[in-house]
């Protein structure tokens, strides 16, 4: 399976009090942008640390770029951005970056050249200020995150692993990160990132895996996952007299024989029909309730909806950041 960047087979990790990951298998094709989705505490970070051989699984095997992840040489071709970010505070930015690059086997002179390139590219080195010469703790939080991101990519890795890359990023840095991921994809690198922000995943990923409570809920290409869950989702927009018809519409959407779940966003609703109910029936009832319908469309569900449907809204942590600010 040389065309797989990551192959995880039957991996489990147990801690004293709980099972962090249970019998997880993943296959990430080379050149893909892959999302590892799940609520907080689902086992995403544990999975990623096992990928990088930072912690060892109790059972199962992990293959990266066609070689065991216990092979030190393979780690040199991987870039990793952990969720908890940090650099040596009292060290000069340039020296930290050279250290990280040298740890990946990049010779010092070559590292220096790439560091300059990246510092300029991310506007950390301009005509009037070279932040590379400053100490890490003189940089703002946003700049430190950029520096850390440079450290992840300096050795031009074939596989980039990002743990919650969007958490704590301001919109400008988030955009820079998205651009960088797209650029990596264009250069045929593999990117896997974990997130609980479905919007980002939906826009960026070729394929996803949703995990909850340490177990895989589903995986596959984004298009495949959506097609699998399509056919029973309806996008509904109401016109200006929405307020008048609000109670009536609410009653219709509350009918569990017709609607399994409705995501009420005031003027826009994403609706999942109950098993056996037909869209015509729903449209009829909504109009009968006095609402003026602007849009009524059979749609593929968003990852957000699939996630809610499969993991369940009762799952703690799901609500955190669901609206997406990245």
């Amino acid at each position: 399976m040389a065309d797989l960047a990551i192959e995880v087979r039957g991996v489990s990790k147990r801690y004293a009090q709980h099972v962090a990951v249970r019998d997880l298998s993943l296959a990430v094709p080379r050149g893909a942008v892959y999302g590892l989705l799940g609520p907080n505490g689902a086992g995403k970070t544990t999975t990623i640390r096992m990928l990088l051989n930072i912690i060892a699984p109790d059972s199962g095997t992990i293959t990266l770029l066609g070689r065991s992840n216990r092979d030190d040489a393979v780690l040199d071709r991987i870039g990793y951005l952990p969720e908890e970010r940090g650099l040596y505070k009292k060290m000069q930015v340039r020296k930290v970056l050279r250290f990280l690059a040298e740890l990946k086997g990049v010779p010092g002179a070559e590292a220096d050249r790439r560091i300059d390139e990246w510092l300029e590219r991310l506007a950390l080195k301009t005509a009037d200020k070279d932040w590379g010469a400053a100490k890490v703790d003189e940089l703002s939080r946003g700049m430190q995150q950029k520096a850390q991101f440079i450290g992840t990519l300096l050795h031009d890795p074939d596989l980039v692993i990002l743990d919650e890359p969007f958490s704590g990023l301001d919109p400008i840095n988030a955009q820079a990160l998205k651009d960088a991921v797209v650029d990596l994809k264009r250069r045929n690198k593999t990117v896997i990132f974990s997130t609980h922000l479905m919007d980002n995943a939906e826009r960026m990923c070729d394929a996803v895996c949703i995990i909850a409570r340490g177990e895989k809920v589903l995986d596959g290409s984004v298009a495949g996952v959506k097609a699998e869950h399509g056919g029973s989702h309806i996008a509904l927009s109401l016109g200006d007299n929405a307020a008048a018809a609000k109670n009536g519409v609410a009653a219709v959407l509350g009918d569990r024989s017709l609607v399994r779940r409705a995501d009420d966003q005031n003027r826009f609703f994403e609706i999942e029909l109950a098993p056996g109910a037909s869209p015509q029936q729903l449209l009829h009832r909504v109009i009968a309730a006095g609402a003026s319908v602007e849009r009524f469309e059979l749609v593929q569900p968003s990852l957000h909806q699939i996630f809610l449907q499969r993991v369940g809204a009762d799952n703690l942590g799901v609500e955190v950041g669901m609206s997406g600010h990245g």
Partner: protein
Amino acid sequence: MAKLWVVIKREYLERVQNKWFVISTLLAPLFFSALIFLPALLTLRSMRSAQVANIIILDATGAGMGARVDSSIRAARPRAEAGGVPAADPGMQVRVVEPGAPLAQAESLASRDVRAGTAGGYLVLDAGSLAGDSARYAGPNASSRAVVDKIERAARDVSLGMRLEGAGIDPAKVQQLTSKRLRLSAERLTATGRGRTGMGNVMFGMAVTLLLYLSIILYGQNVMRGVMEEKQTRVAEVVVSSVSPDKLLAGKILGVGAVGLTQQILWFALTAGIGAYVAPFFAKSARAVAQDMMAQGGSAGARDMSAMMGGMPSITIGQVALLLVFFLIGYFLYSALFAAVGAMVNDEREAQQALGPVMILLIGSSFLMQPVMFNPSSDLARWASLIPFSSPIIMPLRMTMVQVPPLEIAASVAGGLLMVFLFSWLAARIYRVGLLMYGKKPSMAELARWVRQAA
């Protein structure tokens, strides 16, 4: 190996380029030199100024002993100072106290004079002094060894002379016989040769031991802070995704150890350099004092001087190599423990608590230094130099003072190495788990689980 080298390089360069490292490396030798030379210089000065002058001799012997002690003290005054002519009058007064008259009254008068500053002190001679038993001296300079020695010597000589004369021996003969004084020179005898008295070795052993002890604390804590920094800033996770925690730990300990060796080599070299610059001045004034002393007929002071000047420690290259081995064993043993503590804790306060057991081992070893110094051949000294936690500190001290059987040295090194391996293994496991573990400080049971589960 290449990655290990990258880690060592960072640990070393980041510390050596720190401005506090530069400052402490340059300033400490000045401090060390002051520590070595100032006391010696002060001793020399006090020896020169230890002249017995202007004292009152209360003579209650009724045999004219006071006058003879007076002239004996005057005669002992260095000729060099007076340029060959009779010494200047030291202004001593002999007060003869008639037998039967109250001695206490004469004493209170004399002590009033001393308090008023018109006399430097007073010496009481009585029948006991004549019999060679006792005499008393009182004065503000009574704690000066040199002053008391001189007076004691004069009184003893005069007493002996008078008793010999009483036994019917010719005074000239008495003078000739009592002016001879036996000198004891002590040599340290070892299996490989003989050296000077232990004085230089004791000083050297003490200095080396203190340096070892301080270095282990200093650089061990440095390792701990390094680990804590990586944990607190969360940089550890990035680093261990590139290099195994074992290599990171090894690189850190080796890098900091190299910093320690660099600093100590510079300290030795700079202190020796300052010493070479200062020594000529020092030797000149020491020679002058020694001449004065010799002029008095080979006093004890002159012997002390020559011991001090010639008391360079007799240390072989082999011993220096062994000292280095013990430093490395001690440093590796304790820095592994310090690193484990660093990986266990979340902040400085927790670190101080968790350090307790480690510091008890270290400070306990330092408490053993004094008893071992007094008796380096005792059972206590032997055991302390064999038990791995104290051996890196105590064995070097013993080695510089007495001849330690090679078998004991070998056992000490072997035990130390065994512990180094055991504790590195334990520390590496605790480090592996602890580095990425945040939250509550682990209990002993949790630590044991960390060690078991770290694969």
